[in-house]
């Protein structure tokens, strides 16, 4: 992966495959403590203790099309390489929470990259799932909650052209207001 936002897309796709109907993505940039925190939480099928123990092993996967599963190992390694940490909590029937903490100024930290594109892709392709995205930068934050959008839109779908264009602008404008265009 070339940017962390792609890892987020990949890990959130695990939540999609786990049949989640609500996925929360939280990004926090905090210069004082020099860290970047990414949390992905879902209410999908969850994992058993046995699966959880194996999920960080690249040679474990539940898929049948290939014998390796690199999504979680890539994300974990990206965090560990920056002196950060990585944890997964999961319980069957309740969901999964992935927390990755990165050393913000560490030379090996990948750029966060185009998070808005990741969120936009997730929302417009998985219109049956609700997303709550929070982006926090040194205490300033904005959020995008598709449940809020849906209550306004009624039966107008999130992938309708005018709506998806609005979502894109909403993300770009609000992020700019929060971080003044200073991308990490």
């Amino acid at each position, binding site marked *: *992966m*070339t940017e962390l936002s*792609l890892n987020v*897309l*990949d890990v959130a*796709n695990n939540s999609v*495959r786990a049949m989640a109907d609500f996925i929360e993505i939280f990004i926090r940039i905090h210069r004082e403590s020099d860290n970047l925190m990414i949390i992905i939480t879902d209410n999908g099928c969850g994992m058993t203790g046995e699966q959880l123990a194996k999920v960080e092993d690249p040679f474990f996967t539940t*898929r049948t*099309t*290939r014998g390796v*599963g*690199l*999504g979680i190992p*890539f994300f974990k390694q990206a965090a560990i390489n920056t002196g950060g940490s990585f944890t997964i909590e999961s319980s069957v029937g309740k969901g999964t929470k992935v927390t990755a903490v990165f050393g913000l100024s560490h030379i090996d930290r990948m750029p966060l990259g185009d998070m808005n*594109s*990741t969120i*936009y*892709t997730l929302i*417009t*392709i998985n219109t049956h799932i609700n997303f709550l995205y929070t982006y926090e930068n040194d205490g300033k934050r*904005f959020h995008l909650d598709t449940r*809020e*959008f849906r209550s*306004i*839109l*009624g*039966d*107008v*779908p999130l*992938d*309708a*052209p*005018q*709506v*998806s264009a*609005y979502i894109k*602008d*909403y993300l770009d*404008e*609000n992020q700019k*207001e929060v971080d003044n265009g200073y991308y990490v």
Partner: protein
Amino acid sequence: MKSLEELKAIREKMQGQMGLRSESSDQIRVVVGMATCGIASGARPVLNTLSEAVQAKGLTNVAVTQTGCIGLCQYEPIVEIMEPGKDKVTYVKMTAEKALEVVEHHLIRGQIVKKYTIAEMIG
């Protein structure tokens, strides 16, 4: 901050225009591989370009969706086009630019862009 008022205005404008999306039998499915291999090779801009172009061109008979890994990781990003009554077409090593060509030629005019298909790319 961008306001939710704008979203209300969109809703008012669009109400009554809904229900136009067909789920008929001639529906064309465009599927993009979005597993780790696809994403790492650049599937995100390919998927976004496809869904935006399909909407911009008003192709109501085309549905753009994602799938996991189909086991051809070295040829990602992969786009498959499934049209009822026709053979599946698999495009490999796609980019956003190639995706626009596929929309223009394949989805709109029905002409397969042979040079990007798996048969041409791997011989």
